[in-house]
Each structure stands twice: as C-alpha cells, then as structure tokens.
C-alpha cells in the first residue's frame, strides 16, 4: 500500500480519491473520508488564503501518515491539502482511511485530522466580504487538546 500525500492549489474529487485508494481491492471493509470545507462565517468571509511551507508540508504530512499506519492496520490512506485562495463552500482538506474494519478507519481518519491540524505547516488568513484583508486565523487550544488525546504509540 502506497499512501497518497498531495499539496495542491486545485480542488480534489472525493469519489476519484476513494476509487484510486480502493483500486479494485476486495479486502477493504470500511472507508472513512473527512472533507474540511471553507465556511462563510455567517457571510463575513469572502475567502481564505492558505499559506504553506513547501517541502515541509509534504514531509510533515508524510510523517503523520506513517504514524497512522504504525497505529492502525490500514489498507489505504490519502491526505490532500490545498493552498492558495479557497472560497466558502469549497474544499480545503481531504483525509481518506481504508481498513478491513470500521473502528480502525474511523480512528485513523480522526487521528490524521487532529495531528494535521497542529503539525502541518499551513496558515489561514481571512479575506472579508467588505473587501478588507482580515486577520490570520488563530490556532485553537481545542486542536492541541484533540491532538493530545492520542497517546504515544505503545
């Protein structure tokens, strides 16, 4: 199984990514996908600008994926993160985890998102509907707590 990690400006197609990961296999019992989208924040937000650290973003996502593979018996895993300008309603991030059983697929997908949030070098800046440049989005303590609940591998 070769994990797929991509950093790209263009949008992704969830169905195509599930199909690519399945690839005619007949031993996969469970596929969990997580899609993170840009919210309009009640009409306040015109777009998000996503800055990233090229090179490190790929490396760090690769490390997060390897950690997930060491913890759960995954048959496939895909992580795609966009950068650049993303409009409300559009996709930002995709995680796909496939396993023989559902618990592993759910846990791995949630782990990947929790880790990615606090470790992948991406930064969001808001562009507002009034035409002004908004602030850099602040990191949430809740995200650190979410990542912290995954104990180190045993």
């Amino acid at each position: 199984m070769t994990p797929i990690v991509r950093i790209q400006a263009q949008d992704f197609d969830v169905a195509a990514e599930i199909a690519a990961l399945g690839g005619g296999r007949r031993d996969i019992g469970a596929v969990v996908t997580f899609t993170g989208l840009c919210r309009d924040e009640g009409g306040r937000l015109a777009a998000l600008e996503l800055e990233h650290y090229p090179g490190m973003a790929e490396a760090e996502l690769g490390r997060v994926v390897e950690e997930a593979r060491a913890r759960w018996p995954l048959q496939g895993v895909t992580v795609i993160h966009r950068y650049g300008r993303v409009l409300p309603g559009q996709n930002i991030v995709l995680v796909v985890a496939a396993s023989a059983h559902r618990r592993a697929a759910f846990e791995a997908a949630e782990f990947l998102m929790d880790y990615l949030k606090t470790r992948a070098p991406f930064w969001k800046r808001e562009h507002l509907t009034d035409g002004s440049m908004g602030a850099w989005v602040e990191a949430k303590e809740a995200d650190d707590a979410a990542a912290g609940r995954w104990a180190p591998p045993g």
Partner: protein
Amino acid sequence: MRVKLVYFAWVRERVGRPDEEVDLPDGVATVADLVRWLKGRGEEYDYAFENEAVVRAAIDHSHVKPDAAIAGAREIAFFPPMTGG
C-alpha cells in the same frame, strides 16, 4: 555558520521578508540562541518574536523545540502555530 532562515504568515509579515541567509556567530548554538540573536538585529525581529513562546520553529523541515541544537542546519523556519486542516 551560514544558514538560510525562512518565515511564514505573520512572522514573515513582521520580519518583512520571506527568507534570508545569515552568518551566525559562534555563540549561537540553539534555536533559542538564534531568536535572541535575531531580536538584537532590529525592531522588526523584536516585533516578530515579541512573544517568543508563541513562535514555532523547524530545522530542515522538522518541528523543533527552542532548546534544539542548530549545528548542521541548512534551513531554519519560524512561523505561528499552524492553522491548516
């Protein structure tokens, strides 16, 4: 020691450039030493690192803590807490 520094998000904006090459004096051994040295270079660095505990660092594409040794580093990055996903 010559090393490339890269900055992201509001750290980049405060420093006023995305990257630079610097020659470090011998006493600068850790990330924390480097931050202290940078703050002595001008007020843009003082501003960027005004809350040192908030700014994160990476050496050659891996996250590191302030006490990490920088010997042998090719590229050292400074950036705010990440907000991807």
